[in-house]
């Protein structure tokens, strides 16, 4: 099963490589990883998407917790949560296709943020599956470039992951 693990970690150089190193050393699967400082600049928040059996996920969370730099973590998949990913896509356009592309972007509630004679850059956020669906809506060859942040997430309700 797919799990989204949200981690509060000391904002130290090397903290990221400890997490990445753990996954490669123990042969765990990493689908995506995002990291940025939080409102407290001494802490970073990391969102990690992985998959595996319940036993493997249990080991992953235990091993992550064991890293000295990890302050706290939760497995978002265990309760109600919201998940978002940011995507920037560069799409080929021509006089004939411009309107169609624009309509697609509107349907998916994206934004066109750069325009040239032959291309659009589209910004879109949503669940990863929505972003996948948008991409699949285009013919092969019409997409020039895709940049995705990987999912980030937050739990629903008033409780939060903090110190």
């Amino acid at each position: 099963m797919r799990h989204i693990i949200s981690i509060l970690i000391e904002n130290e150089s090397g903290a990221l490589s400890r997490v990445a190193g753990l996954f490669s050393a123990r042969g765990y699967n990493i689908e995506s990883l995002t990291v940025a400082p939080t409102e407290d600049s001494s802490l970073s928040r990391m969102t990690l998407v992985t998959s595996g059996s319940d036993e493997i996920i249990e080991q992953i969370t235990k091993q992550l917790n064991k890293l000295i730099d990890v302050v706290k973590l939760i497995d978002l998949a265990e309760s109600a949560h919201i998940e978002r990913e940011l995507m920037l896509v560069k799409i080929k356009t021509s006089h004939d296709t411009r309107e169609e592309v624009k309509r697609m972007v509107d349907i998916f509630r994206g934004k066109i943020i750069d325009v040239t004679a032959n291309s659009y850059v589209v910004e879109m956020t949503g669940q990863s599956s929505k972003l996948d669906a948008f991409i699949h809506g285009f013919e092969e060859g019409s997409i020039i470039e895709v940049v995705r942040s990987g999912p980030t997430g937050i739990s629903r309700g008033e409780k939060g992951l903090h110190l």
Partner: protein
Amino acid sequence: MELSGGHILVQCLKDEGVEFVFGYPGGSVLHIYDAIFHQDEVKHILVRHEQAAAHAADAYARATGKPGVVLVTSGPGATNAVTGIATAYMDSIPMVIISGQVPSPVIGSDAFQEVDTVGITRPCVKHNFLVKDVNDLAETMKKAFYVATTGRPGPVLVDVPKDMTDPNIKVPYKYPKKISMRSYNPVVSGHKGQIKRAVDMLLTAQRPMIYSGGGVILGEAHKELTELTQLLGYPITNTLMGLGGYPATDKQFVGMLGMHGTYEANMAMHESDVILAVGARFDDRVTGKLAEFCPYAKIIHIDVDPASISKTVKVDVPIVGEVKPVLEQMIELIKDSKTKPSKSALESWWQLIGSWRDVHCLDYDRTSSVIKPQYVVEQLYQVTGGEAFVTSDVGQHQMYAAQYYHFDKPRRWINSGGLGTMGFGLPAAIGVKLAFPEANVACITGEASIQMCIQELSTALQYNAPVKIINLNNRYMGMVRQWQEFSYQSRYSQSYMDTIPDFVKLAEAYGHVGMLIEKPEDVRGALEEAFALKDRTVFLDFITDRTENVYPMIEAGKGHHDMKLRVAPGTPVDRELS
């Protein structure tokens, strides 16, 4: 007090009560060595190879319970120490390693003797630090000792760029008395409800087993373990790392378990219905084939590291906590409980165990005209009254030591279990001897292993650390040869050396005493003579049976009940060597 970084480091060691630092100098640590020169409170032990510095410090920690301290230079100094650091890591040994690093402005420029020490050691330390500001040095050292010695212990490395120890930069020094880290809070006491469940399960067991490991030694819980075991009257087995956690000569002890464990220990594990695992980590050398591991048992597991629990074997009652307080609570509950262990069930269980004991799985040919390695260990046991500190290298000799030297006390058996590092034994013996100058220290080794850190004979002389080296010289990498005999139709590929040095001359060249022992009848006398030479290091080269194997053996992929035993106990094993 204003000090430069080098003096701060030395002062931190003093404030931690460090007795010895094991090290080797080099460019990036010269400021630190200059600070060492100015004092004599912290004694520096100059090894002959950085691997040995780590092993000696590690063994000092295993024998005393206090953290070992290592000091090495950047680049090759640090990489040489890595094997020793990994050895300590695998066996959860508290250790602090200070490594020099190139000056911070040139880090990343492939400077002379630069390696990414923090990166290289990351997977084999509990934690590591790169010091970036001399003002952080003292606090970082405090954190290093704190992390190394609490929770599940382990090595912690502090990488110190040369400019951090610049003698011209002095900063105020204050060593923190206490430290807390928001990201690190090891659990101490176990969950009460779980402990109660565990006790209920234990008291109603029909065929109970206690399986204890290195965690009992590390957690200083041998007294509590012994009390609990004797209160219950249950059989107990130890892992290789747990030997000495329960007195081996007591009648409730059924020997070591696992790949080279006793028949009775492994059979009892296999047939048991309730297993209490205490500070042991279900290593694959212990479990054998997982699918066949303890098929009838409910398992209770006490461990300070949650990640050790249900890692390879799913357990029924996990208890996260330090062994000592958890066992204390269990003892209380057992004493207060109305339920008592079933006498009749226990009686038939011991009877069954008795029948397995009758196999005498450790018997060997005592009439042989060549020296049997087991005989040497038995004689060593007798000559030292079972009271020696015994270090070992890795191979058959290590298993004979574990099987035939009966450890009644913790911290007497010093070996590399998790990493299985050849070369560990001699520097380890030196580390132990420095800690306990009055004690008998023996290093049981093989002619291959001893050559991996043989240069430390020189260290033993310089620091007057007289140890006895028991070389079980079978002219083979015996453990490798044994596997090749069993699994590769005796194709002994590269498992012997065509040239083995004259160890007697070698010992003499290093300023020690060498003895060659070729006949069984000379074994006892040689050992007595060697131990009588109190202040000399003696290298005893025992020419042992080339073809001897370690039994019992659970071969890879087999279960506990599927053991290879010595063919016919008491009769010589007739085997051709190709």
